[in-house]
């Protein structure tokens, strides 16, 4: 078990390193100049050249890469070209904000998606099932920018129930500011999860062990929630882990629309401005998030299905 965990950890680090190296090479081989992006489109070439020399862009790529790796080994992600602040400090501000959003969105996705999926499966072929399937179709089809604008328009502009956007400065304000972006992200995911859980539940409910449980006289709610649902949501764990990892990289459109100062808005600004240290930092966080989320998914698999704990491979 420990050996497997060590191998898994080592391979995860290798994946992160490969991702970072590829990002570094791609960032530096693009036909655009971070010094120009920093100085502005109208800066005179002599001024751009000065900034380029100050930032070390005039040195060979291998030297720049070696310097980056050396800094990384010392926990230093460099300085943002645009914000002129240490990248670690910027990420330390942004990660908790995005984590709040991601965890809340996953919670909405899983709870709403599972509830709708289970109800639809139990009422298969009836109006509730058709309604849930139609809603799920709309939810999955609607892009988040449309869902977000519609929610913003109705709940913040027309009804004035919630703030239009922003991050708030108190806990209460922050909670209120979170509602619409979380719903925007959550509804999309919930629709997807609902379809997934419905199909899995329909499949599981037709299995022999469910018939056996019913034959033993167990309460219907126990049959559904303990016996069927536990098996139906197993594959959902993997999807949830992938979603959590992806959301930690930032929900670009939603964060921009609701002015949520997380990783998504940071990464868009950094990519557009060719702020390579920030881009590298965001990629590092995203890749680590995916790796960690997958690791947690493996652990959760073992807990949810004890049969897997004794198997030679987790998955």
């Amino acid at each position, binding site marked *: 078990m420990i050996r497997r965990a060590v191998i898994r950890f080592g391979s995860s680090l290798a994946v992160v390193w490969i991702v970072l190296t590829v990002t570094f090479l791609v960032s530096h081989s*693009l036909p655009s*100049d*971070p010094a120009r992006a920093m100085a*502005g489109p109208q*800066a005179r*070439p*002599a*001024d751009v050249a000065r900034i380029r020399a100050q930032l070390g862009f005039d040195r060979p790529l291998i030297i720049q890469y070696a310097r980056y790796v050396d800094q990384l080994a010392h926990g230093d992600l460099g300085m943002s070209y645009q914000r002129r602040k240490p990248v670690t400090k910027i990420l330390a501000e942004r990660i908790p904000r995005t984590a709040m959003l991601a965890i809340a969105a996953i919670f909405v996705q899983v709870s709403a998606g599972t509830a709708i999926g289970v109800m639809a499966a139990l009422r298969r072929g009836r109006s509730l099932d058709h309604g849930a399937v139609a809603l799920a179709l709309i939810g999955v089809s609607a892009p988040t920018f449309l869902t977000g604008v519609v929610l913003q328009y109705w709940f913040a502009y027309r009804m004035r*129930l919630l703030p239009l956007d922003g991050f708030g400065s108190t806990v209460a304000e922050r909670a*209120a500011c979170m509602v619409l972006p979380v719903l925007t992200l959550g509804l999309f995911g919930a629709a997807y999860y609902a379809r997934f859980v419905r199909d899995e539940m329909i499949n599981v409910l037709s299995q022999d062990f469910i018939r056996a449980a019913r034959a033993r006289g167990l309460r219907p709610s126990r049959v559904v929630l303990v016996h069927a649902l536990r098996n139906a949501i197993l594959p959902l764990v993997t999807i949830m882990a992938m979603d959590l990892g992806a959301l930690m990289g930032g929900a670009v459109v939603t964060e921009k629309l609701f002015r949520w100062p997380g990783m998504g808005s940071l990464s868009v600004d950094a990519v557009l401005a060719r702020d390579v240290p920030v881009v590298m930092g965001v990629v590092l966080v995203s890749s680590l998030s995916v790796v960690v989320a997958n690791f947690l998914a493996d652990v959760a698999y073992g807990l949810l299905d004890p049969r897997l704990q004794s198997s030679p491979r987790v998955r």
Partner: protein
Amino acid sequence: MRSTHARPEVAALAAALVGACSSPLAAPRGHRRDIPIQRGGTITVAQYVNVRSVDPAVAFDEGSDPIVRLLFARLLRVSESGAFEGELARSFRVTDDGLRVLVQMHPGVRFHDGSVVSARDVKRSLERALHPDTPCPAVSFFDRLVGFDDFRQGKSDQIAGVVAASDVDLEFRLREPDATFLATLTLSFASPVCPSAGATFDPSFSVHACGAGPFRLVRWQDQDAIVLARHESYFEPGLPYLDGITWLFGMQTTTQRFRFEQGRLDFVHELSAADSAAFRNDPRWAPFGAWNEPRSTRGIFMNTRMPPFDRLEVRQAVAAAIDREQVGMLRAGTVVPARSMVPPGVVGHDPDFQGQRFDLPRALDLMRQAGFAYDPATGRGGYPDPIDYFVAAESFEVQAAELYQQHLARIGIRIRLRSMAWTAWLAQTGRPMQAPMGGDGWSADFDDPSNFFDPIFSTSAIQDDESQNRSFFSNAELDAVLARGRREMSPAVRRALYRRADEIVRDQAPWAVVFGYRYYDVWQPYLHGYRPHPRVQQRLAFVWLDLEEKRLALRAKNAPPGSLNVLALALSRRPPP
């Protein structure tokens, strides 16, 4: 079968949702009262872009400029009529030989930290901005100062050409006459910064920025907001009127409109074209809105070293084939057809100048003269190969390019759009034989017509890499006119010189000059003292509030529309920034 039935339902639902969002404007709740000026109150404004820095040594972009102006007083400013006038300078003059600029400052001006601003602070601040370790994007604007090179190369620890003769007397010595030098003193680089800023650039200064402007920095939440409060010791008596300004960043233009209608913004500058039309056409809002003058010129560059644009007739044909009025209709009002390179919001604009104009028969004739005769009836002839058109992937530039594609097809020129990120666009179009044509533009760095010719049309602006002269246009007469314009101190002679420069660009057509952008500002009825300044956008330093009307209006706007509004009431006690 199932999906074909589902599609109309989904489409109808989406249409209903989107349609529901396009409701008419709410009426302004506040009233305009004719009352004496009041002191007090705070206003909230917003913008789409985030501010990266407010350090006057490095901040040089549209997003930061209005805020830097509030925090840092400048030596000079441009009046509404386009003349230079003193801000910190009580008087100033250029000597007859054009080699010295003498400035006398107001005495007793104080920084936000309470210390007195002297001429030595201006010298220190300018040297801080031009220091070799400072990533200042406009160092070369000051390269005519005596001792500039020695300072930049580290041979001297100060610029010999900047002399603080006394607490209030300042002298700038130039190696050669520079008619644009006064204009560069209206920029932020020579704004005095508090002694705590140090002698060299420190990135953390932005977080506790300290200058001598009408407002001081209270708090800067990165990517969220800047909070400013009145500088009580500001040197202009009684100013500013407001207690403070909160400036929000990263806000979508739609959200700005929503917030404005709710009374949570007091002023909007970045309305979408549709929203600005709605405000303009609503008689209830029309008295509280006005246009800004365009401060940029946009058009099509044509690489004069690459075929077919090495032929003058082809360039002229392109310039004549573009229907500028039609381009303006893409965003009615905000996109204004351009006639001159120098836009109306910049000093030196000549409203009577007759520039390039749409003339399709002439364009066809020019194509014929170039050997590429085209018959619109049959579609035969024209330039045989498609031409790559490089465009930065900014939405309007792409829209405009699609229209140019149609215009140029009418004279037998087929263009293939190559859309890319603007950083990639800068790199690719700045190399000599890479981009035959593309969308280009220039915004005013400072108020002088030379700024619209020197960097983009002079031979000296041609580089093997990162060339800003993307047409790679070289014209001996234009170079001579521009060189003379830089040294010439007589306004009348300079006007004639830059008119000639405009004529050369019109006739030689390294660019098809097409349009300029402008913004429509809207403010709440209770906000007084604002009107768009023709040279400075969003000049909010000296506005004031009808406090009673604002209080009533906010109360009216926050009134609960229904029983669902418990949460809104709870939040309205302290609205999030």
